[in-house]
């Protein structure tokens, strides 16, 4: 009887305009929940959507909550079910057969107390923290005396920009993330907040972050932050579905934060900034390619266009050649004046081992080699930046004059006529005063 009633209101083309018209003519939508004794089914009026998917009549959702006569204690039910569930006798230690809280229908009503943690999850707080650290590294290696306002504004601004980009990405990719084991516990997949809420958070964080960078740091840093948000949330998220070149764009996105930090300190971009960007750009490939090799079945099922799915050998080759390119890059870094020339030798050892792991991955792309490469890529950046910092500190102790950023003749950078700063009226010369406080180095 209900089905006939619903078929009477069968709509062939779902659109907002038609639905509104239907509402004004007192269209009645009946959602009928059957009682306990029959099959717990939900009958939703079937509307043929505009896609080319086949239509179906059967409801396929899990049974909806029903109204029982008396209230039942959930923990009792859980205990009863868990005692009845058969465990795999072959000794699998997975808890797939046990029911957990995730097997219940849950309320979608986030309390104010939960919101900060939800926002942190939405912004991928661990990744964002690492992004902020790379920006601060760019700031720290820049040859200008730092001010606390600049430093704090850079930290907060970069954090908000990265949070905004990640939140927007999660809102846009909710159904794809639900298909991947790595991403299926995310906030938007579990519908903990609505898409409107997520987008609002993203827009607010983005505007606040860029505003902070514009007003409290400088316009160049703000422009880089805004460009990063647009590149990640707009371009990269779209490209992930259509072409394998998304990895290259993602590497550029990862390389911009040190440039932001350097620009925050000096107001311009110098060779030092570009080498740090290059370091992060090249590092992204072994890091991401090894990770994506291990989860390529999830990427494949979700429909992502990744190199690890399309061509496994080329995936490993790309990671190898970018790892090898790190060797000459790290050799060149001391010429920019960031670090002492001994950095070239320390970094050679680290890069050689990294290249060895990448070579193993290329020779035999399997889970083991990919995992080893990925794990080392996680510790590679702290090690390299540690060496850079040591070289920077060592360079500081040998500086004769604290008020100048370079002492003539003491650094290879000063001998090279090509680099900016060594020529009169060169474009992109590094300033010696902080744009905010107006103080020079050492004041």
């Amino acid at each position, binding site marked *: 009887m209900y089905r006939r009633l619903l078929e009477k209101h069968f709509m062939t083309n779902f659109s*907002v305009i038609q*639905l*509104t018209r239907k*509402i*004004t003519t007192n269209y009645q*939508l009946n959602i009928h929940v059957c009682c306990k004794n029959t099959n*717990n089914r939900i009958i*939703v009026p079937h*509307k043929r*959507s505009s*896609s*080319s*998917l*086949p239509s179906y009549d059967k409801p*396929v*959702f*899990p*049974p*909806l*909550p*029903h*109204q*029982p006569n008396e*209230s039942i204690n*959930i923990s009792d*039910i*859980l205990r009863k*079910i868990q005692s009845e569930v058969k465990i795999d006798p072959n000794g699998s230690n*997975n808890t*797939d*057969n046990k*029911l957990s809280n*995730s*097997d*219940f*229908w*849950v309320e*979608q*009503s986030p309390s104010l107390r939960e919101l900060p943690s939800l926002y942190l999850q939405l912004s991928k707080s661990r990744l964002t923290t690492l992004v902020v650290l790379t920006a601060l590294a760019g700031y720290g290696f820049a040859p200008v005396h730092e001010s606390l306002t600049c430093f704090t504004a850079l930290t907060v601004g970069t954090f908000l920009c990265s949070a905004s980009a990640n939140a927007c990405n999660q809102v*846009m990719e*909710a*159904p794809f993330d*639900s*298909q991947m*084991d790595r991403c*299926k516990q995310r906030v938007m997949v579990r*519908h903990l907040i609505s*898409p*409107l809420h997520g987008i609002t958070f993203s827009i607010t964080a983005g505007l606040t972050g860029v505003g902070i960078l514009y007003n409290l740091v400088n316009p160049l840093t703000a422009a880089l932050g805004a460009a990063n948000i647009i590149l990640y949330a707009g371009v990269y998220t779209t490209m992930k*579905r*259509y072409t394998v070149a998304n990895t290259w764009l993602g590497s550029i996105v990862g390389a911009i934060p040190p440039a932001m930090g350097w620009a925050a300190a000096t107001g311009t971009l110098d060779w030092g900034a570009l080498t740090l960007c290059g370091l992060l750009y090249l590092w992204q490939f072994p890091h991401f390619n090894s990770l994506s090799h291990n989860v*390529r*079945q999830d990427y*494949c*099922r979700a*429909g992502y266009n990744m190199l690890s799915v*399309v*061509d496994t050998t080329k995936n490993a080759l790309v990671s190898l050649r970018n790892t090898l390119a790190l060797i000459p890059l790290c050799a060149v870094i001391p010429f920019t004046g960031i670090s002492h020339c001994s950095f070239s030798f320390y970094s050679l050892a680290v890069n050689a081992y990294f290249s060895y792991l990448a070579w193993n991955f290329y020779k*035999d792309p*399997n889970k083991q080699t990919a995992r080893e490469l990925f794990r080392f890529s996680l510790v590679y950046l702290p090690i390299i930046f540690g060496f850079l910092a040591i070289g920077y500190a060592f360079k500081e102790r040998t500086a004769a004059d604290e008020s100048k950023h370079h002492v003539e003749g003491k650094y290879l950078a000063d001998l090279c006529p090509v680099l900016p700063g060594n020529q009169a009226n060169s474009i992109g010369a590094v300033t010696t005063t902080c744009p905010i406080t107006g103080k020079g180095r050492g004041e």
Partner: protein
Amino acid sequence: MSKSSHLRYLGSFVRKPEPQITVTNLQPHIDYVSPAHRLSNIRQIRYGKKKDETAAERTLRLYATELHEWNHRYWEQQNQQYINLKQQLLTEIDGIDGEEEVERIMGEFYRSYLLSNKDNFNSYTAQWRKYNLRLVFLSARAQGSRVVRTVRNSVSRSKS
């Protein structure tokens, strides 16, 4: 299918049991989110209906329900196809020894699956982006109507 070591390529979502327990004491005005469906991994939402629901909120509720259902149907169909193809492949390569060979075959399978479903995925992605944007706008409209309704109620209450 025999118990071979290649079973691990099937993934965990095939072995998971159906959710058998349901929440009780449902309240009508709260949204409830279901567990992830066994096959489609999409969660359904039972939107709560307020007593003084505005037209915009009703539109949103119906639209969002339809959208989640559409997502569910699509991924159910897609994942079923994936599982069928993969099981078929695993039965075919049951006797093969050597991890490298199996990895190579699985890599070839993933590549061919992605490339053969490219148009399918592209059209779904384009539609999803469109529907998601529309969902955000409808939510904003519903939220606005709720604010207007609240203001109107408070004004009429203060008048009376």
